[in-house]
């Protein structure tokens, strides 16, 4: 009975403590990678985490978490998310699960995407979660408006983290995403600079492949919090490719340290708004 009462009164997000959007504006900066890594870091520190992947055209999270192509079931409260482990500490819902053929393109126009995202937001039976991370595609369009509108209906969005890479071509797009946040009243929890320098594994020389400093400058320019930077690390990219838990495999790496620091800052920020 309690489940039904909760559902009727608060919906499927009633027992989700915090919801954070991962945005960029720019494609390919590492939104999905960092959503996955932050989720793993938060789980590592004892939190129950969920990931909602609303990138309908390019859903990357299932591969990154090595969940393959599981069957998605409905329960009386809605869709049951896919759990990555028996302890159910990390839950995931992605359109990747609903496609018959993984190579099938989702060639939908805006209205259809909006409708599905509405369902994803309200009809997944997340149960109890400390944090729900929402991974988004690049841009400021249908998906972003849909996810935000639906989350707001349930009074459930703490804010957004914005991901950028250091170069101007990236920060240029992220500036527009910041405007999107301001216009829609979405709190900016902070900016993360990804692909921040590459340390050659052979000689330790640091190369700024995608330039340098843009993330911090962007934070200063727009009055946002700078959450930190994550380096370009082939160990991370390989781990993500193979759907492995980078944090379990490389707990002593500088990369994990960077990610963990960002996760902890994020947690503090949402627990003490």
């Amino acid at each position, binding site marked *: 009975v309690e489940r039904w009462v909760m559902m009727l009164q608060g919906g499927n997000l009633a027992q989700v403590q915090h919801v954070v959007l991962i945005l960029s*504006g*720019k*494609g*390919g*900066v590492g939104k*999905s990678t960092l959503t996955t890594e932050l989720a793993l870091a938060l789980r590592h520190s004892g939190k129950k985490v969920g990931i909602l992947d609303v990138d309908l*055209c*390019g859903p*990357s999270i299932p*591969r990154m978490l090595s969940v393959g192509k599981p069957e998605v079931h409905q329960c009386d409260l809605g869709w049951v998310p896919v759990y990555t482990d028996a302890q159910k500490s990390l839950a995931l819902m992605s359109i990747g699960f609903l496609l018959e053929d*993984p*190579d*099938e*393109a*989702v*060639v*939908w*126009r*805006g*209205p259809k*995407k*909006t409708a599905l995202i509405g369902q994803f937001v309200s009809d997944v039976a997340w149960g109890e979660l400390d944090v729900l991370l929402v991974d988004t*595609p*690049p*841009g*400021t*369009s*249908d998906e*972003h*408006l849909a996810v935000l509108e639906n989350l707001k209906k349930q009074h459930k969005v703490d804010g957004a983290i914005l991901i950028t890479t250091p*170069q*101007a*071509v990236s920060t*240029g*797009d992220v*500036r*527009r*995403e*910041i*405007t*999107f946040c301001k*216009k*829609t009243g979405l709190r900016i929890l902070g900016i993360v600079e990804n692909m921040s320098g*590459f340390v*050659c*594994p*052979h*000689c330790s*020389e640091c*190369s*700024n*492949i*995608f*330039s340098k400093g843009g993330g911090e400058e962007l934070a200063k320019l727009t009055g946002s919090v700078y959450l930190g930077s994550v380096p*370009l690390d*082939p160990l991370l*990219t*390989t781990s*993500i*490719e193979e759907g492995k838990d980078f944090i379990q495999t490389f707990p002593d790496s500088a990369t994990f340290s960077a990610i963990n620091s960002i996760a902890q800052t994020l947690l503090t920020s949402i627990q003490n708004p």
Partner: protein
Amino acid sequence: MADIPSDAPQHCPGTASEQAGKTSACQGCPNQNLCSSGATKAPDPAIEEIAEKMLTVKHKILVLSGKGGVGKSTFSAHLAHALASDATKEVALLDVDICGPSIPRIMGLEGEQVHQSGSGWSPVYVEDNLAVMSIGFLLSSPDDAVIWRGPKKNGMIKQFLRDVDWGELDYLIVDTPPGTSDEHLSIVQYLSSARIDGAVIITTPQEVSLQDVRKEIRFCQKVQLPIIGVVENMSGFVCPKCKNTSQIFPPTTGGAERMCEEMNLTLLGRVPLDPRIGKSCDEGKSFLTEVPDSPAAAAYHSIVQSIQAYCLSHVPREESAG
């Protein structure tokens, strides 16, 4: 075209839908009579207008990916520069990434504005023979966000194709955003009566990219858009100090090469990661002019030559016989 007019109610089925004008949501909509009469399901007259406009454009190339951040805009810009290095050729670059228009910066045209003349919108010229159009030129500030839903983005793309005074062109290159959505459907539909030579697909070596790129390839096959070939970008990094190569974006499933074999496509080439490429883009300069002797520049030139050869050899029978 599933257009939803700006004065439509919520749950509008779209003017081109079978249910147009007939659903319960249509009651009271000012367009209801028009929709139920079937007039809105007639082909968009803009398609013929655009086809007419495109008669003076010899070759049209789309640059697609599916995956974000693989270097579509970087590639489109340098393809345009390379083709325009032949002063006898007229080249234009159209940026239909409405939400994240990078082309103005990459082409060194930030702050430029579009002018309207009697013959339509004037594109912005980088060189005498290289014209560019992007929504970036219509925005007044680098902070302006274009928060548009699909139908409005489609309208903009229609205007770009129909109302820009391109003049006579040898090449029109169209840079697209990642995904398989409104922008991609619109470009293909609006150009459906004009011949598109084909698409160049950009990817990076790792499976996370290829996963999305295969969907884009399926999209091309679905809409019968020929694929000129695939470019594998960010293909390895040579440390400037010790000269060892690192696979930062590892080809764990065989990279673009295996994907091309499996899908029977041409691998046009591989471009290595070079920090000077990103730097050139940020500064609005052509990497091909800034660092002409680099392996990346050589890779670009070879790829461009293959694309040119494709365009010149794939002329439809009607044209070559005439």
